[in-house]
Each structure stands twice: as C-alpha cells, then as structure tokens.
C-alpha cells in the first residue's frame, strides 16, 4: 500500500497549514462510478479554489473540510477533463462547464469531492450538485 501512495503524493501536495473546521462533519461512501478496490481509495471534499487548464492537463486546487490544502493534476491528452468530472454523480455536460466557469472563471463557492484511486492515473472530480455550480 505504501508504494502506490507514494505515487499519490507525487500528484497531490499538501501545501498549507490547517484552516478552520466547519460546524459539521459527515461520512462518505464511494459512489458507483468509482470502481477501484476500496482498499486503494481515498477522497478529499471541500471548496475548490481554482481550476486551470494548461494544454493536456487540468489543475484543481482545494481547501478541504479537513483543513488541508490539496492540488490535483488531471492528465487528459487530446481532450478536456470532462471524462473525469461528474456533477452529483452524473456525467458532466457542456452546459455544466458553462455553469462551472461563468465568464471563464470558476464559480465562487464551488465544492467537490475528489476520489483518488491510488493505482489509477487520474482522480475523479464529483462536483456538488445540491450547491449548484451554475
């Protein structure tokens, strides 16, 4: 387990100190679109503070509900990150992009859960549906 997690740490970087904790915490279960072995799975939930595409990669930065700051890099040669995004568990659409990035900037307050299978290339980003991104 330790070896794949080293790969995860190459992709994710803890870049800051803990921040404040909210007024509630909960418990998640893996959604159906996450198909890897649960023993190789982890997740990060929180506020997405930036989303930037640079060619074949998209970088997402998050301030998690557990007071960490994370950076996720998605690699998507020849495409965008749509295949790795869901909205409330439902596959992402072009309209969702427009809502997520009005005027080309990430909508304020956007939240997501990033599911990371430590033996897979890319994490999957599930944007919160009940707090509309558009």
């Amino acid at each position, binding site marked *: 387990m330790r070896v794949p997690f080293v790969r995860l740490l190459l992709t994710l970087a803890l870049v800051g100190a803990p921040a404040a904790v909210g007024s509630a*915490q*909960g*418990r998640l279960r893996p959604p159906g679109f996450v198909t890897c072995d*649960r*023993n190789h799975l982890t997740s990060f939930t929180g506020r997405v503070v930036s989303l930037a595409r640079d060619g074949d990669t998209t970088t997402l930065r998050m301030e998690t509900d557990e007071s960490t700051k994370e950076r996720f890099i998605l690699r998507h040669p020849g495409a965008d990150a749509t295949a790795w995004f869901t909205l409330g568990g439902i596959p992402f659409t072009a309209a969702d992009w427009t809502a997520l990035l009005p005027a080309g900037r990430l909508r304020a307050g956007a939240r997501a859960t990033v599911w990371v299978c430590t033996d897979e290339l890319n994490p999957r980003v599930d944007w919160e549906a009940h707090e509309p991104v558009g």
Partner: protein
Amino acid sequence: MKRGVLSFLVAGVFLSVPAGAQDAQPGSQSAAAAACAAREAFEDTLPWTFRGVTYPNKRHFVENFKCGAHKYKFDKQSDEEKDIAAGKGKPGGGGGGTPQAGGVIDVYFHVITSSAGAGDVSDQMIANQISVLNAAYSGTGWSFALFATDRTANDAWYTMSPGSSAENDAKAALREGTADDLNIYSAGIGGGLLGWATFPSSYGADPTDDGVVILFSSMPGGTAAPYNLGDTATHEVGHWMGLYHTFQGGCARNATSGGDLVADTPAERSPAYGCPSGRDTCTNLSGADPIENFMDYTDDSCMFKFSSGQDARMDLQFGTYRYQK
C-alpha cells in the same frame, strides 16, 4: 423541551399529590410513594404520547423527574477526580470546561420517510442501532437510552442535505431536548453521504441544528453494505461528542496533538476506505493509519475502537458544551 416537561411535571405533581404533601410526615410520604409506584407500574405497560411525541412508556418519560431520580446519571466525581480526569485530557483538546466522565444520554429518534413510505425502519432496527451505539461506546463511560421515537412522512425532508432548507425545516419541527440530548434523524439522504453531525461547540450558536443525521439503510440490518452494521451512527455521534475525523489536518501534527486534536490517534493523510492492510500515509510520523478507528471512513466491519485520547476529548467537550446546557 426540558423546561416544558418540567412545567408539565410540576403541574402534574400538584394535580396528583395532596396539597402540603411536601411537608407531610414519613407515613404520608410512604403512602404517596406507594401510589406513585403503583401508578407508574401500570403506565409502564402503555405507550405514552406527550406534545405529539410517542414515548415507549410514561415511566421512561417521568422517572428522571417525578420520583426523585436525576435525568442524567452522570458519574459523581469529587473535585479531585475531576482534576484527574482533566489531566488525562488531550493536549490542545477539549474546550476548557469541566470534563464529564460519562453518563446516560437520552436519544430522540426521528424517522423521516417519503410520502410513499420509503425509508421506514422498524422499532427493532432502532433498538438494534441503540445497541450498536452502546457497544461502540462501552469503554468510554457513555451510553445511550432511547427516550422517544417519532415518524414523519415528508418528501422534502426525506432527501435533505447538509445545510439545506429541508434540513432546517425538519430539525425545527422535530428536534427535542437540550444540549445534552441526542437527536438522531434517519432519512434517505443523498449526495453519497452516509450521515453528518454537528459539533458540541456549535450548539450555542444554533441549538436547533444540533444532532445527527444518518442514512436509514446504514442502520443495523439495512441495505447499505458494507456500511450497514450501524457504525455510521457511531461515527456521527463521535462528531456530536466533539471528535474530528482521524484524517483531520492530514499529516499536520505537532509534538502533542494530531490534526484531530487527539494525540493517540496517529496522523493520517486522507480517509481510508475498505479495510486496507498496513496503510501508513504519514510516513514521516510514527504510527500506522488508524483504520480501525470509528472516526475514519473504513467499512463498518473494519472499525471497532475509540482511543483513550478520544474518550478524554469527548468527556471534556461534553462537559464544556453540553452538560446541563
């Protein structure tokens, strides 16, 4: 609710006990006590409803008020013992109040279903859920007693999410008790959540919001395998008692406390799922990930313990923010 109940009981005492009973001779007290016992023995056999809430029986409702017992059976500690308990609290941990080393917490269980009846759970499942809680917390000094159950069919509330108007409405309508009473709401919550809970420190600012929400199918015998052994409630009640996730703060740690403000739960980079063997995500810090801890995200069958530091933090948080608040 407590004030209302007390008012009711005061009225009840004056209605059922002769005037001047408080000054009566021992023989009169004995007769009154016998009458009280006889009445309660009969009432104990019947479900009982007060202010729209059905209780298992009237004895359960009144025994902590009317016949001299205390509602909360917290351990009686000397000041010295309290100091000792405070001393074992986790550094940076609780909140600066006086710890409560344990006690019996009354549980108001609110079953929220859809209008079609989805999400209904049986009384047996609720009893089993309480048993799971009591087993999980057996080493902490805390236990849970079902005080009342109510059932509400409401499609909006059934699918509530954290912070939603549906959640606010449901809790405003259903919540009972004070800071040291546990309100559990079972519903068909979505968003991949098994449950959520408020912290003790949040009670003062928003008492109506206080409580635990769980996915109904996470209860013992439910269909949410591998999360159907009842430990979602265990986990959420842990939050309600003041505990953070074991992965709070990731690998951030100082000499005396982890990100969860509990020193004896090893730091963990991020939540574990399943039941991984040998997971150690903070390799620069001692201790493997606490995957067996109720405050991680592993399968119900994988989690089975609270640490002594978590126990101490619960005591201090409860004493600071909940006890007699």
